[in-house]
């Protein structure tokens, strides 16, 4: 009986996709639960005009309301009357999701290759600047209108991918040829990316018409166009085309991993580098190649941030790259999972501004929640233990004798 159950559990544990989903959902719930407790308790220390009085203390925050705003706010309050699918909040959610898919894929590719690329952020920063600068300069020689759109957008994405890829190749090469730990170098390169881009900006690319630290705007026709009729209309900085591209890229990466020699070699390098070397993979080249691919994806995230969201590059790039780590981890570094995780983090991102306006709860809450989710996702063993306990309670008492007791009589028999 016990073995049967163990077998079932074992199989559950083995069925990795299902397993991943269960763990991720459980982690989400656990994080939400703890976050809720945190919100409620901290409400006891905050001051407010009206609150919930419990045992002489006044609790100012209602966790239910916070989560209502966080999760439903991000979708534009679907349960309220007059809800439209194409609302601004949902657009923001999907916009973030799009960017996070790129960033998450970037991290996933490196992680799968066994490289802890913490540098997606830096790759995104330099890639984005390259996109903006390229498009601004190219716009002066390319005719405008539809031709401009068709030429400039791919050109911009390409520029972002190339420069991001190059910036990712640096830690790759440092790792391959100088044994420099990639965690450290990528963290450092993130700082350096900020320094370099901001120097470049003030040196040459600053928009002369603005006091903000930013490049000149790219022409309107070079921004990712929205889909007419079914798309999100108006000024929402989101395009279904971009999301479709992200999803396509996601599927392409999944295909790359599963079906191609390169993907096989990449996964093998990540799982067991010695075996990969044995199997004919040049470890150094693979390190550089996978970091380049990862960097290129980071650069593409930067490109879309520029081409879809702002129409220019601004200093203080949001931490899409770091969130990409969270997305990839939550997805177990699987490309398809990245889509789902990116949606969740899109919701968190967009919902957090709803929380900020609609409640008095400090907006840093969302950062804490993100951390908690990652923490719980990182410990599948915890949920396995919880699960096992749950299963055991429902089963017959397992037979488990400690050494000693039962064997006492046998000894005598043997001696006889």
């Amino acid at each position, binding site marked *: 009986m016990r073995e049967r159950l163990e077998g079932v559990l074992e199989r559950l544990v083995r069925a990795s996709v299902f397993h991943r989903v269960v763990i991720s959902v459980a982690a989400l719930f656990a994080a939400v639960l703890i976050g809720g407790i945190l919100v409620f308790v901290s409400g006891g220390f905050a001051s407010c005009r009206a609150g919930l009085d419990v045992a002489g203390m006044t609790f100012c925050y*209602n966790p239910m309301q916070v989560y209502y705003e966080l999760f439903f706010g991000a979708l534009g309050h679907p349960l309220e009357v007059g809800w439209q699918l194409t609302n*601004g909040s949902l657009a923001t959610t999907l916009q973030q999701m799009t960017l996070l898919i790129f960033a998450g894929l970037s991290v996933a590719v490196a992680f799968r290759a066994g490289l802890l690329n913490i540098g997606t952020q830096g790759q995104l920063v330099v890639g984005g600047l390259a996109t903006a600068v390229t498009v601004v300069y190219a716009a002066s020689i390319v005719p405008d209108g539809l031709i401009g759109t068709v030429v400039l957008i791919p050109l911009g994405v390409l520029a972002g991918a190339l420069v991001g890829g190059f910036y990712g190749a640096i830690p790759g090469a440092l790792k391959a040829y100088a044994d420099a730990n990639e965690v450290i170098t990528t963290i450092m390169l993130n700082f350096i990316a900020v320094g370099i881009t901001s120097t470049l900006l003030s040196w040459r690319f600053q928009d002369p018409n603005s006091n903000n*630290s930013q490049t000149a705007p790219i022409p309107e026709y070079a921004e990712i166009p929205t889909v007419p009729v079914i798309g999100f209309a108006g*000024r929402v900085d989101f395009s279904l085309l971009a999301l479709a591209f992200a999803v396509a890229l996601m599927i392409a990466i999944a295909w790359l991993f599963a079906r191609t020699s390169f993907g096989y070699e990449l996964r093998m390098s990540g799982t067991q580098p010695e075996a990969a070397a044995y199997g004919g993979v040049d470890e150094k080249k693979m390190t550089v190649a996978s970091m380049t691919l990862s960097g290129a994806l980071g650069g593409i995230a930067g490109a879309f941030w520029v081409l879809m*969201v*702002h129409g220019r590059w*601004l200093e*203080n790039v949001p931490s899409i790259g770091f969130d990409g780590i969270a997305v990839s981890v939550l997805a177990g570094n699987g490309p398809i999972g990245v889509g789902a995780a990116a949606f969740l983090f899109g919701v968190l991102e967009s919902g957090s*501004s709803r929380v900020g*306006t609609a409640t008095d709860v400090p907006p840093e809450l969302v950062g804490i929640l993100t951390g908690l989710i990652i923490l719980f996702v990182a410990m599948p063993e915890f949920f396995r233990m919880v699960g096992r306990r749950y299963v055991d309670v429902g089963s017959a008492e397992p037979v488990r004798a400690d050494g000693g007791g039962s064997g006492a009589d046998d000894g005598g028999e043997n001696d006889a």
Partner: protein
Amino acid sequence: IGGFGGESDAEYQVGMVYATGGLGDDSFNDMAKQGVVDARDEFDLAFDEREPGREGEFPSAQRDFAESGDYDLINCIGYAQAEALGENAPDYPDQNFIIVDAVVEEDNVRSYVFEEPDGSFQVGHLAGLLTDREFAAGAGETNPDASTVGFIGGTESALIQSFEAGFRAGVEHANADVNVVSSYVGDFNDTAQGQSSARSMYQNEDADIIFHAAGRTGIGVFQAAQDEGRFAIGVDSDQSLSNEDFADVILASMVKRVDTAVYNAIESVVNDEFEGGAAETLGLEQDGVSAVYGDEIGGEIPQEIKDALEESRQAIIDGEIDVPSEL
């Protein structure tokens, strides 16, 4: 689902979109908040706040308020919101906005700009006059043998550089021989680095007085001043009041009355007198910017210096002194 905090049923609703750096900066944003809090105490008013973490969040923050249609006025604090507002304002023609520190030429936007270089000129003048003398007050004293003053900025942006430009002009106006050293920490939040920077100025360059325009980083300047027994000049609000722990080294502050701007705008809305499309310049004359002497040690500044400052103030107002706004 209702929150425990309780919904407000005030007659007027105001939205605040603060500059990056957010509340708690002891200066710019806190001053803006002071304005809306003052107004709330005065009128039947409630307000909601957004603190974007970076420039890219401004468009959506403004839009969120405007989209709901619940707000009688949306206050956009900081020059960095200008472009976002320039794009958003025409989309919501019935919504009233104000912007501080920049001009947005739209019919529903009222702009408030401050003449920071003029205010900085004033404190520069003060510093230039004091550094040459023997002066001790509170926990600080000058070194009469060296005549050096310092400027510490947050990031090296055009706005902050205009503070430095005014400050340098003021120092030079006082005494062309005084040496001005300057440094940009690159961060508005790194107290430790601000401290280290200021320490280096006080110790290596023998600076007597440092004027900071560096937000939280400036706290480090005050700490260093206290440690080294020198002086500092605050920015945006009267920092000898908002940081009273350091009142014994804060000679003066270059105050920017963002609170007045916000209060006035709200008042005009309440009185139904809001006038969009106009830009209001707040300079020395309007008391929009001014050198405010430190609460604790300001009184010990010699009268002739105060008189000299008053003189230069008038000269600027009268256009006799031309204060540069660029380095």
